[in-house]
Each structure stands twice: as structure tokens, then as C-alpha cells.
């Protein structure tokens, strides 16, 4: 937060060095050294089982690495618990939708707003502050196009709406870094563009770093500033989308049958 932009390390909001985790004999993530530039959009792609979600769990603190470290805003956060990382400005979504089913849409987001405002354990709330929270919650719900559903219990939402709600909660935390774990997973084809639209809006606001996991490369190609490819727990390549597209190792190891389609859509 020094304001200086001379040092190159200053521009890296997130860095990992030799990040490794082994479950028994199985090494799920191996020696991953990753750099994420501030206010950029980075995608991490890889086939199922490549270790993408495990890597995310290491970044957000759900898992502790066997070796290596995670640095956030220039600070080593490897030993910190998830909620401490949240307070430092890291927000993550989960692959499995995680909303509170028996709270209304508005209450779900209000909880996040409350947490962000740092007023956690006051027993009383003045009516004014309470209304301010609701206003702010509505603002985020409008942003994800759920403004018309605020009074609905979250468990009555369609799956795609739940993911939008989750995004609104995440945004309400106002994190500097958003970790999105397959935000379009399990969503019907018709709903995908709306989710991508919301993500694009967040990106275009320009004041947040986004790291997104996806296993379908075409989904993230035009959103990403850079793409990292994970394969068998190792970082295979990391670079600009067009370089990744043309990287032969990536093509051989990961794209496989998708290769032709991907070239067709990006080649011209």
C-alpha cells in the first residue's frame, strides 16, 4: 500500500513460491510459483483433477501447504486463517454454491456488508445504520441483476441466481482480490452469459484483481489478461491468452481434442 509503483513487486498483489501440498503420498499441488498482477484478470485453467481447487484452497487458507508460501499484498500470509485473509481483502467463491438457504436474498448480502463494515458483535444497531446496510446490500444485488429478488428465501432461487447471489456477497466484502472457483459450473447454458456479464462488469470497474478457475478455456479467453495452466498439480505455462493458445506443451497436454475448436474461435 505504499503508493510507490517503482518496485515491480509492488504490482504483484498475490505471489506464491514453491507452493506444495501432499495428501499422504499424493502430491496434489507441486512447486507452484505464481504471480498475479494487481487489478488484472487471471484465469487458472486445467483439466478436472489438475489441482485447481486445491490451489485455491491454499490461497484462501482452507488448506495449509506442505511447503512454500503465499504472499498477499507483499505480506506472507501462509499461517493465516481464512477469516483473517478475508479481512486483509481476499474474497473467494466456492465451486459448490454456498449461500444461506433460510435467509432472504437481502439478508445473505447484508451479512457480508456487516462483516465488511467491521461491526460484527454489537448487540444493538441503530435503525439508521441498519438501513444503510440494507441500502448497500441492495446496491450489490442490483449489480448482479438480482435487485428484483431481494425478499425471496435463498433456497427458492434457481441455481444460476444462487451463483449471482454468491457473487453479490463476495462483492459486498469489497475484496481487493476475488477468487472465483468455476462460477459457471452447473449452470444451464442460458444462464451462463448473465454470469459472465456480471464478472465482466466487475472487471471493467477496474479496481479489483480477479483470479478465476475454469476448465473450459474458451469461456475465459476474452476476459483474461493472463492465463495459467495447471496440469497434474504443476504449473505448465503462464502467460498472455494468445501465447497460451499457441503454446505447444499446453496444446499437447491439455487442450487435446478441444484444440481444433479453440483455434477456430481464436485464430482469426
Amino acid at each position, binding site marked *: 500500500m505504499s503508493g510507490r509503483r517503482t518496485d515491480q513487486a509492488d504490482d504483484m498483489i498475490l505471489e506464491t513460491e514453491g507452493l506444495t501440498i501432499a495428501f499422504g503420498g499424493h502430491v496434489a499441488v507441486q512447486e507452484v510459483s505464481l504471480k498475479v498482477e494487481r487489478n488484472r484478470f487471471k484465469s487458472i485453467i486445467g483439466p478436472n483433477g489438475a489441482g485447481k481447487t486445491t490451489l485455491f484452497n491454499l490461497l484462501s487458507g482452507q488448506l495449509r501447504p506442505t511447503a512454500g508460501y503465499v504472499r498477499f499484498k507483499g505480506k506472507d500470509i501462509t499461517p493465516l486463517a*481464512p477469516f483473517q485473509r478475508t479481512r486483509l481483502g481476499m474474497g473467494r467463491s466456492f465451486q459448490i454454491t454456498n449461500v*444461506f*438457504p433460510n435467509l432472504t436474498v437481502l*439478508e445473505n448480502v447484508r*451479512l457480508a456488508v456487516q462483516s465488511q463494515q467491521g461491526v460484527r*458483535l454489537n448487540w444493538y444497531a441503530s435503525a439508521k445504520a*441498519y438501513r444503510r446496510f440494507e441500502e448497500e446490500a441492495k446496491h450489490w444485488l442490483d449489480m448482479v441483476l438480482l435487485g428484483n429478488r431481494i425478499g425471496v428465501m435463498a433456497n427458492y432461487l434457481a441455481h444460476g441466481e444462487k451463483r449471482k447471489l454468491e457473487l453479490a456477497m463476495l462483492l459486498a466484502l469489497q475484496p481487493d482480490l476475488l477468487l472465483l472457483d468455476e462460477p459457471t459450473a452447473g449452470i444451464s447454458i442460458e444462464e451462463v452469459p448473465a454470469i459472465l456479464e456480471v464478472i465482466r462488469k466487475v472487471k471493467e470497474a477496474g479496481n479489483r484483481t480477479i483470479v478465476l478457475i475454469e476448465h473450459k478455456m474458451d469461456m475465459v479467453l476474452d476476459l483474461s489478461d493472463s492465463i495459467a495452466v495447471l496440469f497434474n498439480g504443476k504449473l505448465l505455462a503462464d502467460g498472455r491468452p494468445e501465447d497460451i493458445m499457441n503454446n505447444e506443451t499446453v496444446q499437447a497436454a491439455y487442450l487435446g481434442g478441444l484444440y481444433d475448436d479453440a483455434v477456430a474461435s481464436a485464430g482469426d
Partner: protein
Amino acid sequence: MNGIINLLVNGLATGMLIFLLASGLTLIFGLMSVLNFAHGGLFAWGAYGGVWLYAATGSFFVAILGAVVIGMLLGLVLERLVIRPVYGNHIQQILVTLGAMLVLSELLKVVFGPNPLKADVPPLLNGSWEVEGVILIKYRLFIICIGAIVFAGLLFVLKRTKIGLIVRAGVMNPEMVQALGIPIRRVFTLVFMAGAGLAALGGALLAPYSGVIFAEMGMQFAILAFIVVVIGGMGSIQGSAFAALLVGLSGAFMAYYVPELSLAANMLLMVIVLLIKPSGLFGAKG
């Protein structure tokens, strides 16, 4: 008519006392998945604390308030020293809280002696009113009022305050609350203290109602409270309130009309609810 109204008042008063115990239990279980068998011990401490403070100060109000404070302090110690190390392990929780229950009731004997103590109804609440030939015992109505106020207060806190929203969300998914940056452990402590305070309030109110208190008195009520929590649904305050009144009323009417069945009635009620809706009538969790 007189008989029925009396049974109704009895049942409601008992139901409210069970509710005070069950509301804490259900929140503690819903939020932290802790089966707190020591809850009855806190109830008994509330009763003794209330009787002792009433004798010492002469003010029933101070006695009740003091009992709640005693309960909350015991709750704080219990959560920090006994419960915290065994979060997530049900077997250890059962053993350790049952142990705490025994320690709490034995400590009562150490402090207050092994003999049952007499508990008086304060003069203001003593006696009864007669309305159109129906005799209404003041103290029982008082218990019903306090119970209703506590219920309304709990609902208000849960539905309309910031901490209430955190607790409701925590009952559904504590990890997710943590992921939002809220230190859930501190909420655990707070809820445990509140639950302990409510249990102690129940005990302090019961003492003059039953007229005599003894160290093991918590056990019997704790069992009823567990039944209520199961019937009402883990984690649901409305469920606990509804089920507590149901159990209180069924106890009162059964004891009068079919006394042979009065003990079995609550168990039967629980079995039927579990067969039809295993998550309880108002179950908040899956």
C-alpha cells in the same frame, strides 16, 4: 371449566420454564453442534443462586438478575475451558459435558450443603386472583409473562439485529460465516453465555414455583428440554417455543386425566415427530 383453565395455566408455566432451558440448548446445538449435557447444571445453579440472592438481598428482581449473571459467567468458563477443546467431536462432548454436569451439581452441595432448600414466592407475586370463579395463581402467570417476553426478545434479537443475523446464518453454515470474515468462535462464546443465562433464569424462576430446590433438579428438566429441542427442530427458537408449550401442556393434562401415561406421553410425542419429520417440526438444518 376451572379445572381446565388451571391445567392450561400449569401447562403453559411449565412449558415456559422448559422453553428457557431449551432455547439455549437449541441455539448451542444449532450453531456449534455441541450437545451440552451440562445445561441442567446451569439451571440448578440459577435456582440456588436465585434463592441465595433473594435471602441475602430481599429483592426478587436482584435475585433473578444475579442468577442470570451467575449462569452467564459459568457459561463463559464452561465454554472456554471445557467445550472449546472438544469442538467437532461429539463423543468427547457428551463425556465432557456430562462430567461438567456432575461437577456442577456436586459443587452446589459443597457450597450450599446436601439438603434440599426451601424457596419462597416473593410477597408481591404470592397468592392468586379470582376471576369469575376461576382461581389464577399469580406466580404461574408471572412465569408465563416472563417466558413470553424472553421469546419475543429472542425473536427480535435473531430477526432484527446484526448479531442475530450472524447467529441465524451460523446455524445454517458456520464455515461460510467464517469465510465472510466473521470470527465465529467469539459468536460461539457469546451464544453459549446467553444460553447459560437463559438456563439459569429458568432455574431461578422454577425455584419458588416448585417451592423446594435440590442439586439434581436440573436433570429432570434437562431431559424435557432435550425432548423439546428434538421435537422443535435443532436450532429453531420458534420450534423450541412451540414444542415446549406442547410438552408442558401435554404433561399437565396427561397427569390429570391419564396419570399412568404422563411420563410416556412426551416420549411418544417425540417418537411420532421423529417418524414423520426427522428434522423436527421447525428444523432449520437439512
